[in-house]
């Protein structure tokens, strides 16, 4: 009897899990299936679930329709530059906070930390005005420079670098190793796990960023992927080109989704890092 109960319980648990998985994955499957439909089929009633005459045309058509190639290029430039800058500023500052004592250290560190809970919109308008006055609207600079530093990154790097033993640094100092070399040759290589977590996390947030680009970019030539999807959706709402929209969204999201699945473990570590848990 007891055994039977256990069996039933297991079935129920897996059923619940599988239902949640199906709900999670269904919209993606639907997106991919819709992207193979012809125009006639996409506006057929009742809607079909599987494409009747699957076609690849939508993908070719949509690529030029919204300039997805340019958007990919812009997104890559913005994201890669942001990641490099964030790694640079965060690792340096994290190193300083973890391995030195200096006046005002705690105060400055607390200030950095406080921005993690401050709502970012409080800085929105002045930051926009700054970009406006600098004449940086519709440039990729406006998408990179304001995100060149991350409090989360500083926190993450500091936490990780605290675990590197001071004796290691001191023995290098005794050997006459200058401080910048200690950073570059000892601390940085040892921090690789934290650096990759930070790089991935920054990559993802930068790639998906929407609100800020929406404000500072109007020119189609400077669109990043999220803006391109938006404009695609805007035009397809008017003319009911949902099959094209779904093809565009598929192209724009699938490569990243696959990449994200591959590095998922690290992304999750990055999120747990936000909790101050062990990496």
């Amino acid at each position: 009897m007891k055994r039977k109960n256990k069996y039933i319980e297991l079935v129920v648990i897996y059923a619940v899990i599988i239902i949640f998985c199906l709900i999670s994955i269904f919209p993606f499957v639907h997106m991919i299936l819709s992207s193979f439909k012809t125009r006639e089929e996409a506006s057929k009633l009742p809607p079909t679930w599987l494409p009747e005459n699957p076609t690849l045309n939508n993908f070719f058509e949509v690529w030029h329709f919204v300039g997805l190639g340019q958007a990919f290029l812009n997104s890559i430039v913005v994201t890669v530059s942001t990641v490099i800058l964030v790694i640079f500023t965060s690792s340096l500052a994290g190193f300083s906070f973890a391995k030195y004592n200096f006046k005002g250290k705690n105060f400055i560190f607390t200030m950095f930390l406080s921005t993690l809970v401050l709502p970012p919109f409080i800085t929105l308008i002045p930051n926009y005005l700054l970009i406006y006055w600098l004449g940086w609207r519709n440039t990729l600079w406006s998408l990179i420079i304001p995100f060149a530093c991350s409090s989360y990154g500083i926190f993450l790097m500091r936490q990780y670098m605290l675990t590197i033993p001071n004796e290691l640094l001191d023995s290098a100092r005794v050997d006459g190793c200058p401080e910048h070399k200690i950073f570059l040759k000892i601390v940085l290589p040892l921090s690789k796990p934290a650096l990759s977590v930070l790089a991935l996390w920054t990559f993802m947030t930068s790639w998906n960023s929407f609100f800020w680009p929406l404000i500072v970019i109007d020119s189609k030539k400077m669109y990043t992927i999220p803006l391109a999807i938006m404009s695609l959706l805007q035009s397809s709402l008017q003319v009911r080109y949902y099959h094209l929209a779904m093809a565009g969204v598929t192209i724009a999201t699938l490569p990243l989704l696959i990449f994200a699945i591959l590095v998922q473990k690290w992304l999750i570590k990055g999120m747990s890092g936000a909790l101050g848990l062990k990496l």
Partner: protein
Amino acid sequence: MSHIKKFNYLPYFFISPALLHFIIFWIFPIAFTFFLSFMDYNPLNPLTSMSYIGLKNYETIFNSEEFWISIKNSFYFAIVSQPITMAIGLTLALLLKDRKGGSIFRTIIFLPVITSSVAVSAIWAWMYNPTYGIINDIFSKIGLPKRNWLGDPTTALPSIMIVDIWMWAGYHMVLFLAGLQSIPPDLYDAAKVDGAGRLSTLFKITIPLLKPIILFITVMATIGALQIFDLVYVLSGMEYAGGPAMSTLVMILEIYKVCFRKLWFGQAAAMAVVFFFIILVISLIEIRLLRGGAYT
């Protein structure tokens, strides 16, 4: 160390890029938002046209209907969607912990989190489509009435909540899983030896020990939900965002419209200041309440 310590400029040198960035993009803007909220300013005019108008911006926004509606909508959104997202996240975490095949399920449920919010909105906008959408198709197949999900003021915001919950449940699940992993397993063994049932283990061991993480997630999720923008902007129709009939007008969307559509920068800054204090107070209340209940 035998050498005489001089003033060590190095640590300051190392934090200088971060600090400079912080001053330019955080400290100065926060101060400037407060300053701007007492000003009349339109960026299309030269900077010299900025003029001090006292509390007039605040007066205007407090008399504006849209401002109050946006606050109401944001609270409605946060109060309904946050507990549901957290409950689903915690349930999934409890179900998936140490479960065979758990990592595959976790990956699948995590997929929406890593997708861009605009792509998510695009997919759901297509599914919500009143004529060709798959959701109405499912509804009619099981005999329920079709609805104009995003076009009807009563269902528009709840429809967006569903997307938000769908998107973020996996994120909460992962955070809770990380929290569950940090509970030492011998506590569970001890509970088992003492003959504790599963429910009492959950309420006497798991949940109390998860308290710091529950606190963290609640505060962060509330701050996040009160600042919802991307999903609402795209799903409520981009240039028509906030509609139908202001039913999806949320706080950040209201700032966006006043600032970048109407170009009333002073009023938008005043709104940002008010919203800022609202979010601050809510976070502090939550920390108080949840801390107060902690067993330590």
